[in-house]
């Protein structure tokens, strides 16, 4: 069974970490990640850019609505995610619209990825 582990934290607080503290946390995480990689158990890892860089596509309407900022509804739940390659936000939104046409309703939050490691799980 594959499991996704979704990371939640107070963004303002993580943003207030000093560079040294941030580096130290990343280093400690790398130790755990390296162990999992050696065991062939680590899939893609991503650190997302802050929510200030996020855009949300509400896809219940036609055409879908593009909103600045992160997904903010509490009555909907996170059901899945994609990692895509796109040349800019317009391009990424185009992909999201395409996906939305196939599955209208709900929202996609589009967040640039800061750090990405593809992982080592054999499918």
């Amino acid at each position, binding site marked *: 069974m594959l499991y996704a582990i979704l990371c939640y934290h107070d963004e*303002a*607080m*993580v943003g207030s970490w000093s560079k040294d503290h941030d580096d130290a946390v990343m280093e400690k995480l790398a130790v755990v990640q390296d162990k999992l990689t050696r065991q062939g158990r680590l899939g893609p890892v991503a650190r997302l*850019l802050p929510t*200030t860089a996020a855009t949300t596509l509400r896809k219940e309407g036609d055409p879908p609505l593009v*909103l600045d900022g992160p997904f903010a509804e509490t009555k909907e739940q996170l059901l899945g995610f994609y990692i895509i390659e796109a040349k800019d936000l*317009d391009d990424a939104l185009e992909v999201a619209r395409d996906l939305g046409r196939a599955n209208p309703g709900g929202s996609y939050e589009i967040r640039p990825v*800061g750090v990405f490691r593809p992982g080592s799980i054999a499918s």
Partner: protein
Amino acid sequence: MSNIASDLAWIDAALISARPQAVGALLRYFRDLDLAEEAYQNACLRALKTWPQNGPPRDATAWLIMVGRNSGIDDARRRNRLAELPPEDAISDTDDAEGEIAERLDGSHYRDDILRLLFICCHPQLPATQQIALALRIVSGLTVKQIARAFLVSEAAMEQRITRAKAAVAKADVPFETPGAVERSERLAAVAAMIYLVFNEGYSASGDSIAERAPLCDEAIRLARLLLRLFPSEPEIMGLLSLLLLQNARAGARYDADGGIVLLDDQDRSRWNKPMIAEGMALIDKAMRHQSSGPYQVQAAIAALHSSAAHPSETDWTQIELLYRTLEMQQPSPVVTLNRAVAVSKVQGPQAALDLIEPLAKRLSGYFNFHGVRGALLLQLGRCDEARCAFDQAIALAGTTAEAAHIRMHIDRLKAESRAGERQVT
């Protein structure tokens, strides 16, 4: 040991990030900056005492607001025994405050409290220097000593500047209601300008003052992020944050080991901060989709074009020149024209650039950069005597030793070349 250290770092980060909201909420209760600040200070002391033992509260900000409010009420009661006692439930034991927090941090309060705090610091009656000092003290929570150091003034002078600002704000009948749309957008522009000034104070540091002043850049970025979270759809605020990130990304490459200036073309681009650039690019990309241009966005777009060139020769100077042209229309200033001239020199050559800046001579005669750019253009045109004259003027106006050293380098090169020329002649 390292665990304890990282726990304390966690508390530090929590106190820093909770500050704007907590002080903003306390200001709403007490309607007095000093009381709000003192109350928050007390709450922090309490946190430093209890959090390491009891662990962090689930909602640190709410905890700090509650404890701060109770301490403020206690203080007020001690100061004025005749004052009416506050309701019993508000002064009850704070240790288990977290469970029964009346003040759940709902979205609208969050926004209004922080906005009010920022708007007060950027009150139109305060001169810019006081706005900056007040914001760094009240919103960012830097100590007076830290701010004084960053602005290269004595602690006493900075203390006085902040006290004056607070007194002016107290007198200025600050509205505690949320401002209307028009006023809000005016005030928003004032807050953005204040943040940009804070950044520039840090960014213009050189030599020995870098270590003390550079943190102002981080602080400005944090404030810009805070502002963008409050106004997630404002393209100019996206532009502001983008601009600060893209500029700050180059901070590590701007000076050599001896503190000498390294110009953009000569910087080691591998030393630019890539995550910062990625975030800055994502933000300007997002802002431009609104098709509502403004000076911060244009400047960010210029910075983005520099950042996306892997090598100086790949820089899209034509596009940069166009952007400076836009900026000239939005924000006409001889300094902007001077910057455009640098782009013009790359696209059309030094003569066209020189023609563009000669009319500015009178207005920019006291500006270091004008003579530096003019000297460099004259040099490219082979007009060495005039170039040396311009460089001499630049040195006389240099604000920092690094600036002077940079120009001196040009002059030395000129002298060396003319000596080599003489030798060739003889």
